[in-house]
């Protein structure tokens, strides 16, 4: 029994079967990668986990709770954080404030009317946020306005926001896209380190096979909304179905 169990999930957009009877079983503490060509339905699947989309049929269970029919903030409060494919951050605020907001949400819950004491007195929140920024290597940029950062930095910021919440399940939608090689390697190291330090389960969507094979314990290959194979990296590498799905795409 996995921490995240997805059964028979279907999602149609008009005439397009974006998700076709998808099953997924993510083991607690593991890194589970989802790969597949563009438009395979990978992001759509994650959308069904965080309350952005509701599948037409099927179930999504997390830690014994159904994630369907509850609000995005409730899903997050259960311990699910997500890094989006296009960075979703508070662009007008500083890097540090971005992370502090996530930390507040983790400590204070979905709503707390704390309108009198200043933020500058929240030393614990700030220390925690700064420590997380150090983890992702953004400590020197903490006073920058988030919108002025590079795409790779924005993604690392988003990762810091998620990590500061100490989630049980971290969903990463192409976390290294837009990053330079050095930053990509650094991100891989960070994710590995986190896997060892905390019992953090991750679902990662990634096009970069170097990243996938150096991180994942389990890989699901999605094509046209359907999971064609689910196996260990070793077995995936030479799998004929995977080669077929990626035909024309150079990677595998």
């Amino acid at each position, binding site marked *: 029994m996995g921490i995240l169990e997805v059964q028979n999930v279907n999602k149609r957009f008009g005439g397009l079967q974006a998700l076709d009877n998808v099953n997924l079983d993510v083991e607690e503490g593991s890194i589970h990668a989802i790969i597949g060509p563009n438009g395979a339905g990978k992001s759509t699947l994650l959308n069904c986990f965080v309350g952005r989309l509701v599948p037409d049929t099927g179930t999504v269970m997390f830690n014994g709770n159904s994630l369907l029919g509850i*609000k995005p903030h409730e899903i997050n409060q259960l311990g699910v954080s997500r890094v989006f494919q296009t960075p979703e951050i508070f662009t007008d605020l500083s890097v540090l404030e971005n992370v502090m907001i996530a930390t507040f949400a983790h400590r204070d819950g*979905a709503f707390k009317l704390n309108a009198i004491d200043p933020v500058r007195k929240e030393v614990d929140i700030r220390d925690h946020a700064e420590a997380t920024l150090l983890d992702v290597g953004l400590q020197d940029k903490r006073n920058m306005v988030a919108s002025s950062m590079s795409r790779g930095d924005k993604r690392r910021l988003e990762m810091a926001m998620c990590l500061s919440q100490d989630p049980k399940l971290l969903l990463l939608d192409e976390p290294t896209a837009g990053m330079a090689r050095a930053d990509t390697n650094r991100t891989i190291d960070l994710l590995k380190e986190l896997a060892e330090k905390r019992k953090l389960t991750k679902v990662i969507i990634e096009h970069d096979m170097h990243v996938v094979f150096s991180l994942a314990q389990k890989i699901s290959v999605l094509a046209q909304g359907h999971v064609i194979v689910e196996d260990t990296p070793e077995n995936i590498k030479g799998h004929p179905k995977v080669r077929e799905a990626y035909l024309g795409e150079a990677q595998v």
Partner: protein
Amino acid sequence: MTNAIFPSKANDRLLMIFFIIVVLAGPIILAPFGAGYPDLLQRFAIFGIFAIGFNILFGLTGYLSFGHAAFLGVGSYSAVWMLKLLSMNVIPAIILGVVISGLFALVIGYVSLRRSGIYFSILTLAFAQMSYNLAYSVFTPITNGETGLQILLDDPRVLDGGTKPGELPLTNLFGIPMNATQKVEFLGMTLQFNFGFYFCAVILILAFYLSLRIFRSPFGLMLRAVKTNQNRLNYTGVNTRPYTLAAFVISGMYAGLAGSLLASMDPLAGAERMQWTASGEVVLMVILGGAGTLLGPVLGAGFIKYFENIFSKINDNVLHSWFAFMPDGLENVMVTLVHPFVGKGWHLTLGLLFMAIVIFLPGGLMEGFNRIWRKITSKRETATSDTSSDAASTPAE
């Protein structure tokens, strides 16, 4: 540790002291501009409060309400009723005004905040126009329709009724009438120190202080996060609805406070106070001064009220006296040129000014001040070291 993001306690204290001094010295500072008389000074303070409250909603969350005049009106009506029924002391009137407008804001906000963007604005506008029209029709027993709600000789006033027969009583604070004014001659000007103004000024200072606390608080930070990316906030585990509703109710209560102060200075309430133009005016005030800044709304309110009351009174006689030093022909040309921009044409000047500010200074007057301030400090910084970074943010808000 110096930090540009979280203004220090010393910084905020400096800002408060500056604000208190300027407000309390209002009658002296504004006298040379012809704006030092009690009636207008009171308006500056009251609309400053209105704009500060509006800024907590609009400036922080970005939700643009077009119906806040409704809360101003509700505050005024509630206050006048308290003056009629209970006592001419303004304290109960103000308390009721704030409470009732807060309840109104809770209901209107609860419904309107189900939508965002333009739909939210339209919903608030619809509610306010509905209140305005109902005040003239269904609710005439409460609002006294077109005549407006006034105090009358035979009002019950259970606490202090029937003191002076044949004369309308004055609004007061524990016996001190709001219109008590001390006149002082100073450098050829008449300074008027009015009790009503100082009462409003103290409330303005408290209102400003509360907004400062809200701006600096985690609640304020969440509201600013709503403005930049509400979706992200939801996926971060925050339920944004109660945050925006709290901001809406707080700003509605500020509006109600302003409305009840208007009634406390002049015990009269009419439905025109709730009209959409009045709702639009507070939007202009906040944008003109600088939405999302602390001082901007007060500045914007002052600017617009100054134009409305002073610029509108400049007639051709005044213009002739301005240009009297010129030869006759030129004098007449100047008067003809300036004429459309003053007096009844004050809206034209204000409109042009507003456009210029929105185009060249999207952050309002405060952005202009900040730019000037940064120029000054950056010059100083190159001369000394980087120690002035803390001071640079002092007038920023």
